[in-house]
């Protein structure tokens, strides 16, 4: 075992019933390094992190810190050893303020009788502002998912731990926050903190990390220096095969007749929004966190109150009073908020996928046909290459990325006319991601309208034919073809004029 390793794990295994989440894996972490952990959805990354932070107990294997054998049987224990984790799924108290959430671990340790809210808020604000100035006295429950993600990160930053684990922290973040996060992580590295960084975004890994370890199907594949490898090699080791082009070819022909026309859409978080979605094009929505992209799209689908605006679908005006109306017209929305709006965690995978239109898996009399339901799940599961033990398992037993795949499969189950996807590939691995992109392109070519909201600019640029940039609840501009550069988009998103010279 290398002397210099702060954390070292040997022959660790964990099984959930028949599912072997981790089998005989090893892992080494040095002080003052940022160590990437990569692997397909379901490879066992989160499980290992949960073990290291005392939330899950392994079946066998040994964990050493500074060469000392340790038993991590509770989160409290791990925290006391200076191990902090940013969860892949947001785990915060909705009824409590940002400040109290951020310093919850401190409150847990605190021995004095009374709280000191002033100090608490000061510390919380300091930690929060390093990422984004979210007011620390708001209730977490009233924040959008993107902000909750930032709170989750700030929470870990206050632990001043020796080992900091981030499980896909940027899945919901845009460049702006991602950059400030990276700056902070580099500082911490300089201070000698050991950081484990999990992400499906190769660009980030190669920009930030020193070493990378790859898992596949719960097995340890290997570790090496970032300097001495390439994204392609990493992906190949993750997936076990080559992934040629990440993004499908864009449509050659100009968009056909507009499928959807939105005019003068207004609501509490957006105003005078006009846009079209043409047949045969994939439209993207870019913008900073909190720009109001989700709200705009939800308003179209009748999921968010709108004060004004007209919708025209296939030439005829429509007014969706509730989402049910929209679904009836084949207009569906994939929520950015998987856990609370996307899936039924304690219901089976099959039941989740069929939820959008039970008519498809039931007899004319309205009796469910479980064989149909299972087959539907099996087919769509394959299509998004879902990794699961059995289709009757509750979705809660799936890995984050696989839960996302279930949500997408659910959308595909209804062969929609127009789909809005909010952060569709959040937490999805490279292979599955390109798979999903291809599916979207196929849908589009088949005449389905496709609208994608993403905080990952490369994805938008790679996938979309046209990108609408939202700024403070209004559409700041549209970019297509050559103009689709990260720079232009960011400038528009920040309310600046599109080209640098003008500024």
């Amino acid at each position: 075992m290398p002397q210099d390793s702060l954390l070292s794990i040997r022959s660790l295994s964990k099984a959930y019933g028949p599912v072997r989440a981790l089998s005989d894996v090893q892992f080494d972490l040095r002080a003052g390094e940022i160590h990437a952990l990569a692997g397909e959805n379901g490879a066992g990354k989160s499980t290992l992190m949960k073990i290291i932070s005392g939330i899950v107990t392994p079946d066998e294997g040994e964990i050493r810190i500074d060469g000392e054998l340790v038993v991590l049987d509770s989160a409290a224990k791990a925290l006391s050893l200076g191990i902090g984790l940013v969860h892949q799924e947001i785990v915060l108290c909705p009824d409590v303020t940002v400040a109290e959430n951020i310093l919850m671990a401190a409150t847990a340790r605190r021995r004095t009788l009374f709280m000191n809210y002033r100090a608490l808020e000061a510390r919380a604000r300091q930690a929060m502002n390093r990422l984004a100035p979210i007011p620390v006295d708001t209730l977490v429950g009233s924040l959008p998912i993107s902000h909750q993600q930032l709170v989750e990160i700030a929470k870990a930053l206050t632990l001043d731990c020796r080992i900091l684990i981030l499980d896909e922290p940027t899945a919901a973040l845009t460049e702006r926050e991602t950059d400030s996060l990276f700056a902070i992580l580099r500082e911490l590295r300089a201070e000698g903190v050991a950081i484990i960084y999990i992400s499906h975004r190769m660009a980030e890994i190669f920009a930030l990390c020193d070493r990378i370890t790859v898992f596949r199907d719960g097995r340890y594949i290997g570790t090496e220096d970032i300097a001495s490898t390439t994204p392609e090699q990493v992906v190949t080791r993750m997936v076990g095969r080559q992934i040629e082009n990440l993004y499908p070819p864009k449509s050659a022909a100009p968009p056909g007749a507009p499928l959807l026309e939105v005019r003068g859409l207004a609501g509490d978080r957006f105003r005078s929004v006009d846009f079209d979605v043409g047949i045969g094009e994939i439209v993207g929505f870019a913008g900073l966190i909190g720009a109001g992209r989700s709200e705009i799209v939800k308003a179209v689908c009748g999921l968010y109150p709108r004060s004004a605006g007209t919708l025209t679908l296939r030439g005829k005006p429509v007014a969706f009073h509730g989402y049910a109306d929209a679904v009836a017209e084949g207009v569906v929305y994939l929520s950015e908020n998987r856990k609370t709006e996307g899936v039924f965690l304690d219901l089976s995978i099959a039941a989740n996928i069929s939820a959008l239109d039970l008519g498809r898996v039931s007899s004319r009399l309205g009796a469910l046909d479980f064989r149909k339901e299972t087959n539907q799940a099996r087919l769509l599961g394959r299509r998004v290459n879902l990794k699961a033990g059995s289709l009757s398992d509750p979705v809660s037993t799936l890995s984050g990325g696989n839960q996302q795949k279930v949500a997408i499969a659910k959308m595909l189950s209804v062969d929609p006319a127009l789909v809005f996807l909010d952060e569709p590939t959040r937490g999805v691995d490279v292979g599955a991601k390109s798979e999903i992109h291809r599916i979207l392109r196929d849908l589009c070519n088949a005449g389905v309208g496709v609208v994608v909201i993403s905080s990952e600019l490369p994805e938008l640029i790679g996938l979309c034919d046209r990108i609408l940039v939202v700024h403070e609840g209004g559409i700041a501009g549209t970019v297509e073809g050559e103009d689709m550069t990260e720079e232009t988009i960011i400038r528009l998103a920040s309310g600046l004029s599109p080209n640098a010279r003008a500024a």
Partner: protein
Amino acid sequence: MAVGDMPITSTEPKARRMNLHSMREGGLIVIILAICIAMSFASPYFMTWGNVKAMMLSFAVDGIVVVGMTILLIVGGIDLSVGSVVCLSMTVSGSLFLAGAAPWLASIGGIAAAALVGVCMGLCVTMVGLSYFITSLAFMVIARGLSMLITQGTPLSLFTLPPTFKFIGQGTIEGVPFVIVIFVVIALIFDVLLRRATVFRRFLYTGSNEQAARYSGINVKRVKFGATVLCSGLAGLAGVIYMARFGSATPTFGVGMELNVIAAAVIGGASLNGGSGSILGAVLGVALLSIVSSSLLLLDVSVYWQDMIRGCILLAAVAADHFMQKRKA
């Protein structure tokens, strides 16, 4: 591995259909059998048809209420008003009958009154946005008040009910009391519906995660409204049956019934957070409760000991059930 080469064998529709239920029910069945066996040694009368009949009679009608409650719990609701609503249906149909209405018409009136309470509660919950707990608590008081008002505080005596109608509550078919037949039929129907009907699957979605249900295009308000009315309606039916059994309508009837009913549903696997529960389970739950009570009677346990022992057995049963599930899981 991809889904393609998954152990799909384990996902046979059969297995799937049960997965929400089977475990819990298995446990309860074992426990009930255990008690029955123990009892049949303790008392020669326990396993006689007469006693079995007596036990079934003791929970058949409440069982109908439990069915409704279970469905409401699955949706994520709760109804404290059932006891009063049973009574309301009783007194309304009773007084309609005394006012000269045909018993069948009168019964429909009673059930309608009960359902109306459900409608009001449903509106308070879905439209106004009040919590199920408070709403149903208020209507528990209101419905009770209505019964008081209707009967002017005195039990209505319904001797003149025609035997054909009394049959509902007192008749037997091949020695099997008719109330038991009604109960079994209703339980079966709703058990099947709950497992197989798309409408009821929406109930499950709504209870499991209301937001996600909304984002699946389910009209959660309609679902909750429906479940609420259904629960009250079944309570109303129970009221009519009780009227037929006792040939009277007592304004104080069903006080405190709600707790027993909810308990039975919860023992049967329903969760107060919604999203889980089964009819079969609930039936077993209500059966367990009454088997325990009547066992104590058969053993001639002192009145002062009965509650103590009943509570302990209940606790033991639930704990045992819990462990069996853990082991299975």
